[in-house]
């Protein structure tokens, strides 16, 4: 369709009719605010005085019904729709790179039900997760989802890119924390996934939409699990001479019980970030463990932890560092503590079984440091399973090119190198930050012919290709 002033205003009036005039905006400030998210390239671009692609219209529906109306209008006119939670994503997944409609979910922030018996809170997916946590705390419970972006991301945002929090080893990832979801399909139909997960009524519909990054539909309501607050949460920090010992010890530990927090820092991150924030000034690999739950069990689990880690030469640093880390767990991410422009940086998180994860770390470290000597490589391992772990590896370039196009070229080259190395050694494109526009080009490299499953879903559900174009490699 050829867009002109007349048609623009016609479409605008239809959208205003759908969501209310005050919730439909063409204000420059609204377009600007939605044009930059946490993606380094978008930040760099505006830092250099450039302007990122902007939506033509920003709409804020209050519920699934209004969302449905918006999608029907968008489908009729074949206008791109990009869904935005709070913009805290690092992969450019919420950026309206194709223009069109930006659908901000934050008006869908109602807490519909707090169900103690069913152990969930039903809420609009535009709710900031911290608010859900506060609602749970109010009745003595917790969501047990504590990512660093807890205060600045929505329920829908976490679901859209399969987020994870720091106590994931015990309580699970976001896909473990959701029961039923309400989803608006691209054609405007409103559907509900099954009333409970873990069923045998065919494949789980939740899993089709979780991680789909707004390319297959818009999640508008979700039942998020709540947990009884632990009687006790104990911390214990350790120093391993090398990471191999830490991996072996952790794998063995996870065959016995699940701690809540497990974070292993490589020697480079131990001597930089951990030294700065936590104050550990030692060589080696720092590891922080938290055990929580019923006090009697915590007592037993702590003994198992100490015995297991001692066997692998870990030095017990006591509880103080762990407690400090817990207190500061969000502090890391405030301006002044976190990497920021003018530095170039990225987190290439990937996941693999134990037989591959350490190999991936060393291969990525070597690939980045060899091919990009201007980059520093640091890493930690912060989400653990009985079968494997994720590596949160970062590159930092202190003095990237000033020219924005050159900076983009270098940024993308480092990313391609790092992720391809992970893939070649048995990893995946990403663990919990998602794909977005940043890594879409690498999805086919990971999945090969399996990508046709996603493409088939996309074609069937979104035949006009309006939903979040150029994201997820779809």
């Amino acid at each position, binding site marked *: 369709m050829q867009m002109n002033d007349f048609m623009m205003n016609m479409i605008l009036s239809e959208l205003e009719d759908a969501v209310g005039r005050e919730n439909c905006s063409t204000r420059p*400030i609204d377009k600007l*605010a939605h044009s*930059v998210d946490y993606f380094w390239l978008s930040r760099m671009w*505006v830092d250099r005085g450039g302007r990122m692609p902007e939506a033509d219209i920003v709409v804020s529906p209050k519920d699934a019904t209004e969302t449905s109306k918006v999608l029907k209008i968008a489908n009729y006119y074949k206008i791109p729709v990009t869904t935005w939670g709070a913009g805290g994503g690092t992969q450019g997944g919420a950026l309206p790179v194709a223009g069109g409609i930006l659908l901000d979910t934050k*008006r869908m922030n109602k807490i519909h039900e707090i169900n103690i018996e069913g152990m969930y809170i039903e809420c609009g997916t535009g709710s900031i997760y911290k608010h859900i946590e506060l609602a749970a705390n109010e009745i003595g419970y917790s969501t047990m989802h504590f990512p660093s972006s807890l205060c600045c991301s929505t329920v829908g945002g976490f679901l859209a890119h399969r987020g994870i929090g720091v106590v994931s080893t015990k309580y699970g990832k976001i896909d473990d924390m959701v029961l039923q979801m309400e989803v608006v399909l691209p054609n405007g139909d409103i559907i509900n996934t099954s009333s409970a997960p873990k069923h045998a009524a065919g494949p789980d519909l939740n899993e089709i939409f979780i991680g789909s990054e707004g390319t297959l539909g818009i999640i508008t309501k979700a039942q998020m699990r709540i947990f009884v607050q632990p009687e006790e949460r104990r911390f214990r920090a350790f120093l391993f001479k090398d990471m191999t010992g830490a991996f072996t010890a952790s794998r063995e530990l996870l065959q016995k019980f699940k701690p809540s927090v497990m974070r292993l820092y490589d020697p480079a991150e131990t001597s930089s970030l951990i030294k700065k924030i936590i104050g550990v000034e030692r060589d080696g690999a720092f590891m922080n463990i938290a055990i929580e739950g019923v006090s009697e069990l915590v007592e037993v689990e702590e003994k198992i932890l100490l015995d297991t880690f001692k066997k692998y030469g870990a030095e017990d640093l006591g509880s103080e560092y762990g407690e400090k880390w817990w207190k500061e767990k969000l502090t890391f991410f405030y301006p002044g503590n976190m990497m920021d*422009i003018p530095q170039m940086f990225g987190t290439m998180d990937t996941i693999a079984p134990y037989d591959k994860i350490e190999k991936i770390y060393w291969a990525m470290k070597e690939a980045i440091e060899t091919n990009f000597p201007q980059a520093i490589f640091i890493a930690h391992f912060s989400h653990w399973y009985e079968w494997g772990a994720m590596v949160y590896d970062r590159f930092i370039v202190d003095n990237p090119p000033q020219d924005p196009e050159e900076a983009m070229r270098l940024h993308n080259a480092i990313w391609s190198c790092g992720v391809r190395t992970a893939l070649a050694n048995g990893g995946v494109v990403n663990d919990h930050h998602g794909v977005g526009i940043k890594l879409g080009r690498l999805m086919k490299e990971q999945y090969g012919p399996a990508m046709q499953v996603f493409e088939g879903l996309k074609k069937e559900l979104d035949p006009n290709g309006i939903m979040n174009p150029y994201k997820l490699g779809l």
Partner: protein
Amino acid sequence: MTISEKSKKTIDSCRFCWMCHHICPVGNATGQERNTARARALALSLVNRDALEFSDDIINNLYECTLCGGCTNDCVTGWDPIVFIKEARTEAAMNGKSPKYITKMIDALEATGNVYGIKKLDSELSKEISLLPKSNTLLFLGMDARTKVPSAAINAIKALKKSGVEFTALADEPNSGWAMDTLVGATEETRQTMLKAASVINNYKTVIVFDPSDAKSFIHEYKEWGIKIKAEVKTFTAVCAKALADGKLKLAKSNTIYTFQDPALLVREVGESEEPRQIIEACGELKEMFLNRKGTMFAGNLLMTEYLEDTMKLIAAKRWEDASRTGANVLVTACCSEYAVLNMVKPENMELKTIEQIIVEA
């Protein structure tokens, strides 16, 4: 833009930081991304880089901020978005770019001493003031109580009398300068307004400040301008709480369950959170809202209702949701302006009272 280095640094820190997203009352109530510290900082950072015009749209967005300090309070690394928002408002004023709804209030302020353009004091309040004796203690009622919520002003007078405090009040009270500072920041007009108020206040030994906004100005902005207040500044709630502790104020405790809305400026800028609670707990049971004390969520003010009435109502309605979850029967406020906005959207199943009202009634 001619803004300070401190503001420029804050803008460049806040533009890419999302950490206070959850705490902005306007952002949470409206669901609009522009109502965040980072959106305002992003726009101003582009203005500073000559990549964006300092347009009416950006300036309007500056006036959507309540200056409640939630983001500042929440920032663990100490950035203060209020600094650059106020400086940018000043910049707009200096360049004749203030929005019409702002200049209208400034004109009214200069003509009548209040932003609402109300010329006459409420007759009942006027009578109450005229009956007060001369004293070296002044009750400073403030713009909003005098013009928009006279019932609160009258109850404040009655509550202080009940507390055994000897005081007077002024029929022609000067404006504290808070409103001008909010509208255009640190301009010469603001300074002159404050100087005028100081010259009146300094005739008294003690000033009991009823409105937390005025208390904040007397304590902070006057110092920043180097304007001396010789009089001892005390808040209304602190004076009543002291009288209660000294046994001069007697309150009858009932079975009523209260919850309390901490006024953002009282708790964050004046540092007062326990005094109102001591009063409420003497009147009944207090059940806290989850976001309380310094973490309070602003619930609206009258000045902004002049140009953003719907937004103020949304903010107040959001806070009523928090209040209703406590199971309390009565929401108590210690700021008459917040009371007035909360009253606009009061749910039927709860009561709303000012702290001076419960003192008078208990």
